[in-house]
Every structure is written in C-alpha cells, then in structure tokens.
C-alpha cells in the first residue's frame, strides 16, 4: 500500500498543477453566441450590417412587426374609416374603440421599439467615421441612418406629441419630453442631411433614397402647418404638444417647394393600376410610385414579414384562399359612401369575403394567382377592408398568414395631394384642383367611365373638405394617414361624432363604442405609464 499511497500523492499534485496552470484565462468569459458591442463597428461589413439593423425596426418580429403589422392596428383605426370589430378583444383592439389607456402594453412596446431604432442609428452615426471603407458609401450609410432616425422621431412625435430627442448612442435616460419645436427641428435636420447625400435611387432595393427624405420633409411641413392653422390641440389647454411656434405660411411654402421638386425630378409616377400598389408580387410597380416602403422577405427564418391578416385583407380562409383570418378592425359605411360607384378604388379597398368554395373566382396578376373576394355588401358582417391582398397560399414558401410583399409608407399620390394642399393654402385653388385629376384618372383606369364623373361627384365648394375626402379615398387604411389628417385639420372629434349608427352592419354593431369612448384629448396617445414610472421627469398628456 505504501506504493499506492505515493501514486495518489503524485496524481494529486498533477491535478493541482493542471488546475493552477489553466487558471489564467479561466475567469475570462468568452462569448460564444454573440458579438460584444465594443468589438463591432470596425469594418465596412459591420457598417452595412449595422445599417440593416437600423432598418430592422421598421419590421421587427421582436416588436410585433411594427410598420408591418402593429403600427397599422394602432394608427389606422379608431377613426371614421375603421373601428374594432364587435366582440374582438386583444391588446391591439383598444385602439379601434379609443379605449387605450396609459397602462396598455402595446403602446409601451411601440415607444420602446422606436427609441430602440433611434439608438441603433445613433450608434452607427457615432461609430462609422473611423471605419475604413469606401467614402461615398460611408456617407450614404450615415445619411440613411439620419433618415431613419428622423423617421422614428417623427412617428413618436405624431403619436405622443412632445418627446425626448436622442442624438447620441446610449443616451442619458432620464431626459424630459422636449417641446415639438425642438423635436421637429431635429427631425427636419435629419431628413435634410439625408436628402443632401442620398442618391436618386438606392442601390439596395427597398432602402431610403433622396426622395424618401424629401417626401417626409414635405409631410412634416404639411403636418406642422395644418396643425398650426387649425389649432390642433389648443382647446386642451395643455403646456405640452404646442404648435404656436410654427410659421404656417413658410411651412406651406416649403411643402410646395419640396413637392414640386419631387414631382419635377423625383422620377416617380402614379403607377397605372391602383391595385398593383397593394399586391405581394408587384414590387416593380410599387417602386414606380413609392418613395418609401416597408419590406417583407420570403426568407425562411429571419422573421421579417408583413402580417396583414388580422384586418386588412378580404375575409376568407387564410390557409387556402389568402384571406383574413380575423376581423379585428372593420370599415365604416362612411368610408364606403365616400366613393362614387364608378371609382375602382372602392372595389379594391372594400369587399365581401373570398368564397371558400371550389369555384372561388381567381385572377392572375403578373402570372400569380389571387382569389377574388365578393363585392362589398354593407349590411352583412362580411363587409370588410380589402386594401391589401395575399396571393394563393399554395404558392407561398412562408406561413400563409405572413407576407413577403412590400407595404407603402409614402407614395407619390400623397405628394401630389400635399402639393395641392399647399397650393390651395397659397391661393392657387385651380392649381390645387388640377393635381387631383391624375389621381382620379387612375381611379377610373381601365373602365369606360370618364373622370369627369368623379370630378363632379366629388366636388365640394370647400376645397379643403374635398381634398381631405380625396385623401381618404386614395390613401385609406395606409399608415396613419387618416388619423393624422383628421388631427391636423382638427376634425377628429367631429368626424367620429358624425358617424352613424346605421348604414352598415358595422355601424350598427361596432361604431357605438368608439363614439362613447372618444374624447378630444385622445388625439394624443398617452405616454405609457410604465415609462413615467421609470422616468418621473416625463409628464403625461392631458386627459390621461
């Protein structure tokens, strides 16, 4: 045993030496499954990947797909175009009946996501300069980041009013809300920087170009000018969210100047067929008209898809027909009656259900099958929104409730209408009216109807009223446009009060709740209560 004893001692010694020998790096954690922020932003590849990350927040699965899903539910609903379908309850449907409270998780989600987007841009902007790469591309990347930072701030300000503004990576996080003047000065500055540097068209499809930035400049100018002119929110008597600093005349001048430039040099046009703007396989035509889009992919695992089946597709079997699987939000009769029977936009935007029979009609769009819904019948529950369309799911390589298409965020038609608004403000009513013509022409494209039918039918002596209605006809159910139009023209409350409790199945069943809940102060969303809890220097919007 003596011999064995020594062996044990030797083995122990060896073990101890081994353990001490590996000690040096033993307590240095090695990341296996991620990159540390400090070790990133070093190469051209890093810069491109970081930029992609900035875009990701437009359609991030982690945040409910933002502009590819959640933002549509939040911004498109609870107005005279669409309301929550009766009996539907989930965290998004409160928006359609204006019952959202400061405690609702979805608002906090949006707030967090948009600021996350801002921070991603700020990291890239602050860290790209030392990267050795093509100088032109470097400036472009920075300019795209400026554009996105401006865009995220703009959406925040439109939703919540005064907001904290961040232009540094990982900022101090107890800042109070900055007044709208400061916010929009920053937003416009970012858009301008982007517009100066960005090329006429992005080399990477779906990315921002010069005109994306210009277009949003025009939108911001028009928004501010109208809010000032119409006294948006002044009756609320709050110190927050004020537009009194705005010079409406100069802003409208800018709208006209920028819009004219886009019209003259942007190279965009109204694409021939209205319905091609909202299909899954018609990017080529969408890009003709769209200054900026949200993109979905057909790639398997990265989660960047649009999800429109909860409200924006015709009702139908999602697995076999590409229809909507739920009616979270439903259209009003008012949005239907705004159209003339001859207007093809109505037929596109509002329909009945896609039949679930073997004989369901089919149309072929650029070689791709789409099931065709029945015509809208207002009196039945299947009267629904059909703005966007999914192709026959049999031909999809992604789950049927998702879409790999692109969604319009800003299109040329909107620019034309903004220019019309600016021209009218500046006293050029005929010039303004002339701009409506091409849009209405498209609305009868391919039919035997003469555009004069629409011109006559839609005529209103008050041009602004006609313009607002035309904007709804053309741009209904597109990201927040109706909501922000009603707000900047201070008509949201009257529009909801004017909604009838008859006229369609949904007016009978779903509209009353919105009318009960709506209050004028709801033009601003409440700052999420959890955010105020965390940063007590944030003040709540009036009324909440």
């Amino acid at each position: 045993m003596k011999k064995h004893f020594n062996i044990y001692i030797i083995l122990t010694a060896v073990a101890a030496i081994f353990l001490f020998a590996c000690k040096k790096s033993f307590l240095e954690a090695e990341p296996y499954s991620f990159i540390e922020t400090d070790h990133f932003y070093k190469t051209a590849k890093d810069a491109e990947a970081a930029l992609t990350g900035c875009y990701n927040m437009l359609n991030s699965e982690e945040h409910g797909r933002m502009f590819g899903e959640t933002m549509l539910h939040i911004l498109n609903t609870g107005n005279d175009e669409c309301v929550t379908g009766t009996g539907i309850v989930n965290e998004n449907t409160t928006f359609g009946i204006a019952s959202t409270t400061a405690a609702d998780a979805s608002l906090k989600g949006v707030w967090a996501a948009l600021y996350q987007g801002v921070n991603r841009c700020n990291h890239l902007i602050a860290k790209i300069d030392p990267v050795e790469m093509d100088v032109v591309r470097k400036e472009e990347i920075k300019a795209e980041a400026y554009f996105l930072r401006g865009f995220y701030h703009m959406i925040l300000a439109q939703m919540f009013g005064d907001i904290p503004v961040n232009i540094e990576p990982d900022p101090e996080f107890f800042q109070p809300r900055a007044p709208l003047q400061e916010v929009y000065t920053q937003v416009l500055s970012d858009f301008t920087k982007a517009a100066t540097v960005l090329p006429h068209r992005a080399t990477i499809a779906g990315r921002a170009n010069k005109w994306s930035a210009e277009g949003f400049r025009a939108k911001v100018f028009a928004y501010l000018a109208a809010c000032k002119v119409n006294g948006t929110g002044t009756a609320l008597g709050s110190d927050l969210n004020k537009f009194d600093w705005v010079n409406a005349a100069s802003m409208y001048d800018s709208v006209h100047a920028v819009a004219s430039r886009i019209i003259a040099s942007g190279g965009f046009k109204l694409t021939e067929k209205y319905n091609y703007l909202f299909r899954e396989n018609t990017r080529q035509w969408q890009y003709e008209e769209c200054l900026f889009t949200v993109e979905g992919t057909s790639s398997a695992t990265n989660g960047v898809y649009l999800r429109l089946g909860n409200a924006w597709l015709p009702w139908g079997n999602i697995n076999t027909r590409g229809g909507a699987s739920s009616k979270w939000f439903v259209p009003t009769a008012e949005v239907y009656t705004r159209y003339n029977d001859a207007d093809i936009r109505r037929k596109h935007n509002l329909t009945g259900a896609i039949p679930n029979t073997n004989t369901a009609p089919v149309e072929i769009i650029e070689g791709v099958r789409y099931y065709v819904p029945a015509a809208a019948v207002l009196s039945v529950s299947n009267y629904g929104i059909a703005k966007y369309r999914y192709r026959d799911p049999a031909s999809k390589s992604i789950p049927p409730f998702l879409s790999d298409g692109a969604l319009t965020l800003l299109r040329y038609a909107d620019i034309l209408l903004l220019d019309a608004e600016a021209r009218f403000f500046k006293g050029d009513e005929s010039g303004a009216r002339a701009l409506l013509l091409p849009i209405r022409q498209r609305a009868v494209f391919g039919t035997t109807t003469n555009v004069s039918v629409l011109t006559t039918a839609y005529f209103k002596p008050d041009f602004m009223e006609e313009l607002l209605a035309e904007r709804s006809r053309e741009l209904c159910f597109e990201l927040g446009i109706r909501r922000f139009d009603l707000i900047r023209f201070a008509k949201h409350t009257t529009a909801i009060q004017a909604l009838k409790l008859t006229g369609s199945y949904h007016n009978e069943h779903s509209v009353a709740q919105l009318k009960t809940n709506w209050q004028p102060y709801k033009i601003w969303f409440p700052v999420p209560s959890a955010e105020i809890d965390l940063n007590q220097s944030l003040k709540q919007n009036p009324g909440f």
Partner: protein
Amino acid sequence: MRRSGFKIVITLFTLFFFQISNAQIARITGVVTGNDDEPLPNVTIRVKGKSASLKSDNKGAFSVTAVKGDSLIFTSVGYKAQSVFVSDTRTLTVRMETAVNSLEDVVVIGYGTRKKSDLTGAVSGVKAKDIEQSRNTDLLSSMQGKVAGARIFSQSGEPGAAINVQIRGISSLYGSSSPLYVIDGVPYDVNANEVAISGEANLGYSSNPLNTLNPADIEAIDVLKDASATAIYGSRGANGVVIITTKSGKSGRSITTYDGYVSFAKATKSLDMLYGNEFIEYQRLVNPQSSLFYNNSGPQGTINLNDPRDPYALEQHDWQAEMIQTAISQNHNIAISGGSEKTTFAGGIGFLNEEGIIRNNNQKRYSIRLKVDHQASKKIKLGLNFNTAYTDMNGATNTGQANAWNGIIQNIISAKPIAFFDSDFDETVGFVTPLSIIDNAYKNVSSIRSTLNGYTEIEILRNLKLNISGGGILSSSKGKEFYSRLTPLGNANNGVGILQENRSISWYNTNRLTYQYEVNANHKFDIMGAFETNGYVFENMLMRSSDFADESTGIDDISKGAVVNRLNSEKWVNNRLSWLGRFNYTYMDKYLFTASFRADGSDKFGAGNKYGYFPSLAVAWKANQEVFLRDADWLSELKVRLSYGQTGNERIPAYSYAGKMNNTFYSSGGISTYGVSPSTLANRNLKWENTTQYNAGLDLGVLDNRFSITLDLYNKRTNDMLLPVLIPSQSGYEQQWQNIGRIDNSGWEIQLTSQNIRSADLQWTTNFNISQNFNEIKSLGTLSYIPVIIDNGVISNIGRVSVGQSLGTAYGYVSDGIYQIDQFNWQNNSDASIPHAQRTYSLRPGEVDVAGVTVQPGSYRFRDLNKDGMIDDLNDRTFISNSLPKHFGGINNTISYKGFELNVFFEWSYGGEIFNLGKIAQQGLSVNSNISREYLNNKWTPENPSNEYPDFRSANGLPGGNTSFRLSSSYYVEDASYLRLKNLSLNYNLPRKWISALGLTSGRVYVTGNNLLLFTDYTGYDPDVSFDNPLFSGLDRITYPRSKSFIAGVSISF
C-alpha cells in the same frame, strides 16, 4: 416494549446493588436491535469514560468486556444513544430507539459533517422517513411545511412543474431566490432552462430540473440557513443551501427493499362555469343576432334573420369534466444495500408512471443509482457515486402566450360549452375545442440527468486528511412539440413542429485538507482548507417548422414542414474558482467557535470585479454542560448560538455586464439581409451581490428530549442586489443589469418536537414549525420604485417593487364598488322613460371620474385617494396586494400503536395575496367565451344594481358598461391564505410471524391521502400557485389544478 420494561427493571436492580458490588471484570455479550426488533449492525459500543469502541456485527451481536458498575454506551446514527449499566447479567438485548430530532444526528454541513449537538449554525432538515411518509413523486414537495424557515411552493399542480424554495425570505431579486443544491457534494444551481419545455406558449411557468431525483433514494435533506452555515459556499450561499444526501450502504447484511404503490388522483376543485343550456340563454342575452340562433343562409354566407336554427340541438360539453380525469399512477422502487468491512454499497432502481389530472398529460421517470465506498487501505478511502434518471413528460398543457389567453387550462374555462362553430370568431378549420387542442397537439419533453462523482480520502498524517473529489452533472433534455391543423396554432400555420435540445454540463473539483487536533480533552481544533473550481456549460438548439403537407409523422419527421420558421443555437459558459477555509474550536465541550472564509472568483463579472470575499463567525454555548446545570436532569440540551456571516450571489446570466449585439435582419426587395444591432446596455461596474446575516438561536431539550424546541432569530441584509433593472426605454433599451439598492429580511422560526406519549404500545409525536419573515426593500439606488410589467394581454402594469414595501406587491387602484345609474346624467334631463340601452350616460358633476376611460353604470369604481375628483395613474394608485405570506408552517402528528402508524400532516400559509387574473376570464374574455355562473347570477344590471359584480364589458363585445376593467385594481386581489391537510397516511408493519413465514425481514403496507382537505377563501383552483417572477409571484392566470390523491402501497425488505 416488553424487553424495554425488562431493561428498566434490570437497570434499577443494578443501581440498587451498585454500591455493594465489587469491581469485577466480565465479558458481556448481546444483541442490538432497532425498534422494529431487527438486528442492528454497526452500532458503536463503548464503555463510558473510555475511548476504545467496537461495533455490533452483521447480526447485531456484540461482545464487550466491562466492569460491573460501568455503563455501556450504544450509539448509532439515526438512533437515540442508549446507556446500560453493567450488572450481573452477562447477556443483554439492547433495543435502540429511532431518534426523533436526535442531538446525536450527524448533520451534513458544507465540506464536512458535524454532530447536531456541535452545530454553531442554523440547520434543519428532513430525513428519509419524512420523505417516505408523503409519497410525493417530487423531492422538494416532500419538504413542504416541514422545514422551519423554508417556504416551499409550487408553480402549479402539473406533474414536473417547478417548485420554488425560499429560505428565509427573498434576498435576491433575480433567479427565483432559489437556494444552492448540493447533491452528494456536487453543487448545483437550478437552471430551469435545462428542461426543454419552453417551446410555444408557456408563459411564466417552468419545470423543475430536480424532478429527476427519486425521493426514495434520499437519506436526508439538510437546509443550511444562517450565514455561519452557508458562508462556506460563499458566492452561492446567499439564498441558503440545501444539501441532499443519498442513501449509503452499511457493512453487514445486505438488505433488499421493494417499495411500490398505486395512486389515484383527481382535481380538488372545479370552477363553476355555465353549462350548455345556460350558455345559450346567456348568448341570447348578449348576442341574439348571431349564427348560434340563425343559419348562415344570408348573402355571402352571413346570418339570415328569417332562418332561425335550434341551438339546443348542438352537442353540449362540460370541458372541465371531460378534460380533468382521475389520474392513476404507480411508483416502484427497489433498493439494495450492504457491504463488507471494507466496501459498502447502496443502489437501486426506480420507476414512476404518473398521470396528470389533465387528459393526455403524464410523466414517467426511470432512475438508477449506485454508491460505493471502499476502504482501500488504512489510509486511503475511495468512493464512487452515480445517479441517473430519465424522465419523460407528455402533454401539451401549455399555460398560454404572453399576450393572449390561449393556454389549455385557460381554454377549459373560457371555451363555450357547446359544439358550435362560429365562422366570425372560430378557426377556419371549424370549432377547435379544448379537447382538440389537447388531443391534436403533441408535446414530449424527455430529459436525462446524471450525477457522477468520485472521491479519494487520504490520511497523509495522523488526523490530517486530504480529500480530492470531483464530478459533475450532465443533463440533456429534448423537447418535441407538434401542433396539428386542428389546434389554433397549427391551424394558422398548417401544422407547426418544434424540436429543441438543451444540454448542460456542470463540473467541479474540490481539493480539501482537514486537520483535527486535540490539545487535550478541553481544547479541540478542527481545521479545513480547500481549493475548488467549477464550471458550467450550457448549450441549446431549437428548430421550428410549419406548413406540413403531411402531418402523419408529426414531429418525428420535421423535414415535412416546408417552412422553417426558426433556427437557434446558443452556448454559454460560466467558470468559478474558489479558496476556502474553516476553523472550529471547542473548549471544554461547552464553548464552540467556528470561523470560515471563502474567496470566490467568477467570470460573470468584468475585470476588477471578479472576486468576492465571504467571512463568517459563530459561537455556541452548551449551557447544559455547565456545572450549575449539571444536576438539572430534566434538561437534556440547552444551547445558545450566535452567528454572523456574509454570502454572495452571482446567479445571473453569463455576460450580463457586456453590451451585446443581436441579429436583426431586414429585407431588400424580398431578399433577406443580415443585420445586427445593440441589444443590451453594458454595465462594466457590475459586481457581486452581498448578503450579511446575523442569527441568534436557541436549542432546548427537556425530559430526555421528549420535548425539544429550536428557535432562531435572524436578520439578513442584502446589498448591491443584482437585477435586470427596467430602465426608461427612451434609452434604446428596456433593461440593464445593475447592482441596485438593499433588501432586508428578518424573521424568526420555531421548530418544536414533542413526544406526547412514549409508552410501550403507544407513541405519539408532534412536530410543529412556524416561520415568519419580514421583507423590506430598503433602497433601490437612485430609483424609488421599479414597475413590474407582466405581459398577459389584459392588465400588464401590475406590480411594483418599491422602497419601504416588501417584494411582490401589486400596484393599482383601490376597488370601491361599481358605478350606479344615479351617478350619471343622460338625455332629456335624465328622462327615466328612456330605456337603459338607449341612454348616453355622462357622469354627474362631483362624481369621481377615471382618466382615459369613459365610465358607465356598471363600471368598476375606484377610490379617489387624493380627493381631486379624478382617478389617475399618478395620484390614485397604491399598493394593493402582497404576494408573500405573513407566516407559514406545518404540524405533523405521528401516532404509533403496535404495528400501526398514523401520520397527519397539516400545512398552512397565512396572509399572502394573489392577483387573480382568472376573474377576468370568468367574466367573459369575449362575447362567445364562457363565464362563471356566480358572475352571471349576480352581475350588475339596472334591475340588480350590484356593488360587487360589474356589468359586462363592452370592450369584449358584450352589451355592457364595464369600461374600467383593464386597469390594475384591488378588485382582482384575493386572500391566498390556506390550511391544507397535506398528508394523511396509515402504515401497518406486518406481524413478525407473517414476515418470517414469508421469508422477509420486514414488511409494511400503507395507505396515504395527499391534499385531502383545503380550507381557503381563494376562488381560483388553488391558492398555492406562483408566477415565475420573483418580483411578483402572486399572480394566477388560471394554472393547472391541484390534485388530491389516494395512495396504497407496500414495502418489504429481505
């Protein structure tokens, strides 16, 4: 007992003759038995006052030389020491009695053992016998209510569900505050992710990785509570340490034991929901123009009001009755132990087949273990120990997604009780019933877990020992899920399959030197020093596919899924390095002194913050050894203990201090492009969390320990708490790891044992324990509170962690009844002739309004705390619930009469509260969901102006006026106090002659009932639930119901 009486006579006899008899050397032989009259090997026998000892042999026989008048002392672990006077009798039969709370018990402390009477720290535990009594399939549940100071509660009634153990309150904010487990010397931090259960829709619930331990294999569980005991585990001891020791063999006769039982379990309760006809009447009330009452013969398949249908012709269901079954389970264990003088072994195999009370839900467990100790030479001892279990859990009993109420248990409650397909709401495939969700979903989690370790102990010099041990735990768990088209999830995706595998290796090596030195009988030293390394490697992968053209092979061929939705793999590693030492000094066997120190290095912190240092000090005074108490015969023990120590905590995810980049893809023209973005905010200053604890304890035993009591008072102070603190998301992040503030726990605990009756035939023992803990958040750094956001789809900003409060508080409005009609104005100067349904109500001036909500008659009313007429977030919310109980404990009575033993165990928890979100579901999740009968019968209507039950909720599509239900309020808070008859068992030891006839050495039959009675006011399934968030555990989203079970079994040895 006859023999025992005989012994007393003998003793008295010898006493009487003691004075007159001469010293006379004699050889005394005899047999030692246990109280079951079984021969007891390995009993240490020595003559009082002499150090030489010997042991009883395999047959319990011994032979010793003594002088008449000597006392023979018989000691054995687990038995009361016996002292026998040597008289003229040369043959003795000594019957050892099983120790109840024996002071001679050896308690496993960290890196060593001590006699209970020599402890300086606060340690309590349960023994194999306690574990056996309850026949729990899960080890931790066996401890519930039996260990003072340890609050043990389960997340739900599901087999394999996670069990939370809190020792002396919550002192860490992160990681469930679970203690460190040391299984046969192998340290193990619970990582719930080791069980691959988290595929789809399992919010706030996890599984119990220790579920793989077979309770039948466990010899003892010792819980180290105060810092003197836990500081030796330094970095990992802050939440207490639970030391689990498996059964070892004894040299001598081999014993084979079989223990098996069958159990029948059923739900303790069902919720009172509407039946089919009642539901139809309810629908006629709230949704008369629906396809339930009319055929879809209108345009585009919509309803035709001229074409009614008969709703009563639809099939009707009581989902709870159909889904909740009587579960039949069986458990079989075979254990073998024995050994020779040099080698002992213990091993066994176990099989458990446990059915859940929800249909298609079960778990199986196969376990095997072997423990071998070998004395290789006089100086070298070796041992190997392995323990492997395979568990197989089946059943898609998911608990719902974060933002929706789509869990199976939730569905049982809210699904309409008729087989009615409503094309407006239901899945496109048709009516998906809760049954079809279960029957057409497949979920299987199989885990294998092996604990392996070995040691060698070398006596280098006399009393100087080197112990080298090493080993680890290997865990591999595979999760498989398949949701066919007939489930909501599968329907939207044309079938969904999820495959995941989680694997971990936890290894350790300890090199320990111990030295015992006795200067003389008065001064004894015991010194230990050790160096330890350990590491943990965790890896997982997950694959999710959908669009299955053919579902016939399910998840077993995931390649049939045309679309891959998710691919994930992850790996992380955590290493630690420690030096530790302990010094024990005993003076005169009266004063005990313990000091320990440990230095821990961890890679979870960045440079400069890696090391933490943890000292402890303790003293104990055995007062009964003092001269002035020596004559107090009634006093068998009186010990006072004082301790101080520090422990640490670093149980946070690896790399928490670092800023991480996440993959964030985007698309270009429909093609995916790779992107990355900052996802976590770095905190380079992140450092150890530190807990300082003071403890004062008293152990008192009187009348030969017939009555004993252990009392402990403690104060724990945790500084620099580690927490992923929510930060304003305007920062670009939602949370950051920080060391934040301070939390204090103080409290007391009492453990009482009383042998009420100790007669020959009848014995009655009562064990009682009660613990009270006060938890207070003293500081949160720069913050005064942190909101706790729970994603649940209805109310999310519920909890608040706030300075001056205890953990687990809900924050919201104080419920103040229901708005009534006379608080409103309506059209035509409140014209009473206008029907309620046509009125447009507006609050009368002076009535309290709710900001952001248009309240109606029938809405919840809240108390206007600042009396400004407006209920708003800023001014009117307050603390409305507390998840933590005020006190809890258990009382256990054991009564033995001849061969019978009856055990009655009550357990209670008092003063905790639950935020019962189930109430929301019971009032109608949407227009076509079921509701509770109680609500429907009592709800607010103009005719029944209830001040307790609100109107329906218009936001749910119901024609009603409760608009304020989405706000967190005390309406949902319920008292979760309960008293439970947790265990009632009756054992019968078969008579000796039967046993002999059968060739057995012992035999026993038993019947046991678990959870037989529950006294509580809580309206959900069971008040003993917990949400998997230590900041707010008192939340119930309708969890898996608890079961009561009846067990019948047999145990035999040969």
